[in-house]
């Protein structure tokens, strides 16, 4: 089967996280006001990052598409009733995660994601490594080699720049666990990339 880059297939202009948030809120309002074109636009803004996130959780591309479709089936009927449009992205990623977990149920990945991690405390004073030296291509490849909980936390961080509290809300784990996962994920990713490059 021939594969192409997502951007080549789907197209569409890229937006920064902040712009995406504002545009989403605007489209949500238009959708509530009865603009029928707002919803497809909203979906087209979010399907790329959601697909990227889901693809990091499930085993195959086919599963990722199925999960993404299921995400819209669950989210679309409830979008109009969403109380806080500012929390749209967190809400959407939570649905995506829960849908992916349902898909992964009874697999080793599910147990991995459900595991809790020791809260971030001991290494709190140690600065987490940054990634200025690595390109997006290297980070993309490195993510695939991380443990699933680390990969998930770091993907959310890289994609949407979510705060610890937001990642905790999406992943249903305490904030301390998120801090710990992010810290360990950065260390592990750096080690992987330095070893391979």
């Amino acid at each position, binding site marked *: 089967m021939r*594969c192409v*880059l997502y951007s080549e297939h789907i197209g569409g202009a890229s937006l920064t996280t902040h712009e995406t948030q504002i545009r989403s809120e*605007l489209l949500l309002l238009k959708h509530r006001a009865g603009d029928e074109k707002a919803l497809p636009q909203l979906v087209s803004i979010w399907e790329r990052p959601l697909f990227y996130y889901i693809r990091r959780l499930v085993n195959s591309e086919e599963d990722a598409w199925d999960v993404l479709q299921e995400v819209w089936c669950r989210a679309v009927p409830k979008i109009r009733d969403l109380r806080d449009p500012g929390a749209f992205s967190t809400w959407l990623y939570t649905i995506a995660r829960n849908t992916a977990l349902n898909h992964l149920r009874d697999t080793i990945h599910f147990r991995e994601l459900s595991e809790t991690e020791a809260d971030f405390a001991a290494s709190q004073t140690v600065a987490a490594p940054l990634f200025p030296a690595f390109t997006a291509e290297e980070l993309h490849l490195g993510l695939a080699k991380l443990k699933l909980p680390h990969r998930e936390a770091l993907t959310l961080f890289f994609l949407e720049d979510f705060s610890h509290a937001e990642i905790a809300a999406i992943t249903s784990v305490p904030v301390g666990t998120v801090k710990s996962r992010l810290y360990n994920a950065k260390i592990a990713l750096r080690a992987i990339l330095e070893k391979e490059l």
Partner: protein
Amino acid sequence: MNNPELRDRLLELEIVTPELAARYNEKKKAIFERRLTPTLRVMWVLATIMGAGFFVLFSYAAILTLQDPGFPRIGTILFSVGALFGLGWAILGISFVKKGTASLELWNNATLKQMQTMHPAVAGMTWVFCVLLMVACQMMANDMPDTARGNQMILGGMVAMLMFAIPTMIMGHDTKSEIFMREKFLEIELQLAELRKLAAINDNNNKENTPDD
């Protein structure tokens, strides 16, 4: 904060199979259709029956009054309008129940600008229809033998309409205004974000082009 370009670069690196993406896009189309829930389906079936009932009833009344030379012509016209109103609902109901979705091509294909024109137009048409109906009823009441009783009924109807329709219209207008204000605010915020992004790109370009001392 992350480098905003990192997000875009990561998304661009995701590899997809066109066949799978096309299959997903096909399935996605069905999600946007407003499928009728069982309750809505029953409601639309009832609305269709009601519309058909109005059509039969008003058509029958219009034909009967047409044969009566003493009956005011405006009454016959009103019954005919009522019959058309019922027929419209029946056709709409049949179409929705048959398709299983409550959406019209006219609405689905309208641009945002057209939608902004259509919404007030539909509200205005409903309002004008109600006012015309009341005025016509008033005229018909004047032609009736017992005009005082007819006038009382019309007056009562108008008061009831004013009591319910006007506050509802004002509340609807208030909500629309609030949404409109928030929408404009977000549009400005979006433009500012885009300008900030452009300014950052320009800054970077300037730094790159400035020769080192």
